[in-house]
């Protein structure tokens, strides 16, 4: 799995134009990311982690912060 915290943060800052992203920054419940960015982010996580994300995986518990995404992807890839 290529997905690391560093790569994820860089993707969020460079491709999705966010600033000062930290491991615990709330990305969706803060309204920073909209539905288009959500689809792009999911595609990125799928590609980098080599996993498939189904619609009911896409929850705040799994995707709201960088650390939650990593935990989810690691669990799924294992």
């Amino acid at each position, binding site marked *: 799995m290529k997905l690391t915290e560093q790569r994820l943060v860089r993707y969020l800052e460079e491709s999705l*134009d966010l*600033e*000062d992203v930290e491991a615990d920054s709330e990305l*969706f*419940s*803060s*309204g920073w990311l*909209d*539905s*288009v960015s*959500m*689809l*792009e982010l999911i*595609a990125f996580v799928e590609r980098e982690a080599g996993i498939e994300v189904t*619609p*009911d995986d*896409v*929850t*705040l518990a799994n*995707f709201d912060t960088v650390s939650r995404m990593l935990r989810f992807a690691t669990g799924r890839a294992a």
Partner: protein
Amino acid sequence: MLKTLRDNYDRHGRALMNPAFVSLAVYRYGRWALARKHPAARWLAKKLHGFTNFFVANITKVWIPPEVTLGDDFHIIHAEGSLSIHPDVVAGDRLGVMHNVTIGTNMRPGAPVIGDDVFIGVNSTVLATFDSATAYALPPTPPLRPTCHPIPSSSVLRQRSFRDSRPSTRRLANAPSPDPRSPPQSNFTPPRNMNTLSTTFYELLADNLPTHAQKQALVDTNRSVTYAELCSQVDRLAGYMAEHGVRPRDRVGVQLHKTIDEVVAMFSAAKLGAVVVNVNFQWTLEQLSYVADDCTLSMLLIEPRCAKRLAKQGLPRSVRHVLVHGKSPADDGRFGAWALALDAAPGATRHQLDTELAMIIYTSGSTGKPKGVMLSHRNIVAGARSVARYLKLRGDDRLISVLPYSFDYGLNQLTTMLLQGGAIVHQPVVMPFEIVRTLREERITGFAAVPPLWNQVVRYLKEKPESLPELRRVTNSGGKLSKNILELMPEVFPSTDIYLMYGLTEAFRSTYLPPEKFSDKCGSMGRAIPGAQTFVIKHGEGVAGPTEQGELVHRGPLVSLGYWGKPEPTAEKIKPCPELKSLIGEEPVVYSGDIVRVDEDGDYWFVGRTDMMIKTSGFRLSPDEVEDLVAQSGLVGDVVAFGVDDDEMGQVVHAAVSPLSEPLDEAALLTHCRRAMPHYMIPRKFHVWTRPMPRTSSGKLAKSEIIKVSASAHAKEQAS
């Protein structure tokens, strides 16, 4: 007179040139002049008093007419700005006045009495019938006893002090009770249900107080507010805005995350008679700055992240103050923090005409720079009434709000609930799983979305069916749903009314298809909404009848005031229609730019845009038609069809597509098209988008951008 003058001198800093003392001295002299018995002496004394007007107007700026009776301890705290007191007012003993205060009334017969302990805040107006919200629903608050400086932090206190005041020693014998909440003593009883009487955007909110003060109004993820609490916050933020120089008709920019505070921000500006400019939360700082310059925003209410960047690069020229929804990035007075704003003294309601400008909605322009559509109070209130009527909205409804308030469709959800005293549940998270969870847990009764969101939610519900017995209605607007989604909707929403609607920001909403016609007329736009009129125009010929098609035009109270600062585009969009002259004369109508077909029953069907039509081998072709047919293949999600110039055919059809599963089976897609379409309609080329297609901030496909990217890639391929 000399004794009171000495008292005033003592109380106002023992300085002869203290403006407060000077104003009071002038006032005392005016009283003395008025009391002269000899007509000639009175005339002379009054002339001299009039002469002091010059002094008052230029130096002290406080004018109290001698007809006014002042209490013993009357104290002017700050003599800056103007002060006018209506001659009929009897001020109590301990009235304190800050600057820029107007106390006036003409609201009902008799002289109003201002109680002993009333303290009037900055930039306030005290009316005989009180305007403040919170009086209706108060938690017990200890009566306030201000002497000089303390300013009550909310109108709650102000109204409490009204009620708890001791009988004034100077109350006129025939004066009515100062407490408007005791109907038996009042000679005017306002109607209980005020909602039906709302004429302005602000009244849509405030008119809930007589009957719905304790009802839940707004729900965030971690808190909720009643109408009384919401109005009380609006009072205070309005006071803060007024303190920071917001005047009637000023534009106030709001770019906030979807929360209760965003709603507070909008109505605070509205209360002062300022124009609300809600800027989409997803817009960049550059776009926000464009809006700020375009309509000269005087104040901004934004999130800390945006404020931090603004502090670095400097404020847009017209912006005098920025209120930050969180911590302020700088300590220099340009920025203020939200928590402090809610300590301000209440702001006053400004009387407004329903024809005045209430709001500017920037349309996420598919071409050129965004344009600000100007909405009057009447536009907004008429839109709320019409939609509440045909969606059968009630006071027990709870709508989920996913769409932004910077989008007329999202804003209307809020205004309809305010009109009916219902509740709005904020859903800033766009994940289908989370939306469905909120629908279930918050017992949502109405859900509004746009096609891209419906695609996601309907597909999700198809896979994970959910019984949603409380959901009375779902609505679509902002674009046409694809046939696949339309067919799935009754399946995933078996007990829910499905409304298909159509409108454009310049006239908010034009048509809707009633849910009982959904299965018979699946995909139709229906007919005009209540209180609006639509016509289909064949240019140069007349009005289209059944089975004909033409451009939809819209007439009625939803026709907006045009584009801010852009008279020419306005005159192109909103103008008299020659084909309708015999029916409505020179009354301007909105030209939608949309071609629709009228069926045998008079229902409309969307055909396409006037300006996006593809012309190929002599046929006029709507991109939407191509898109529908391509989408029916089930192989692709989003489709954007467009014309590319061609030497032989004039134009040929291309389609940008995003595959539902990768890699796209292009051969199968082409086979489907060959089966489903006439030859001229078949796309010559598919531009495969592996990344999601860009969307406008309101969630629609950004067609012109998609076309531009696809076409330039195509041109490069041709050249190489």
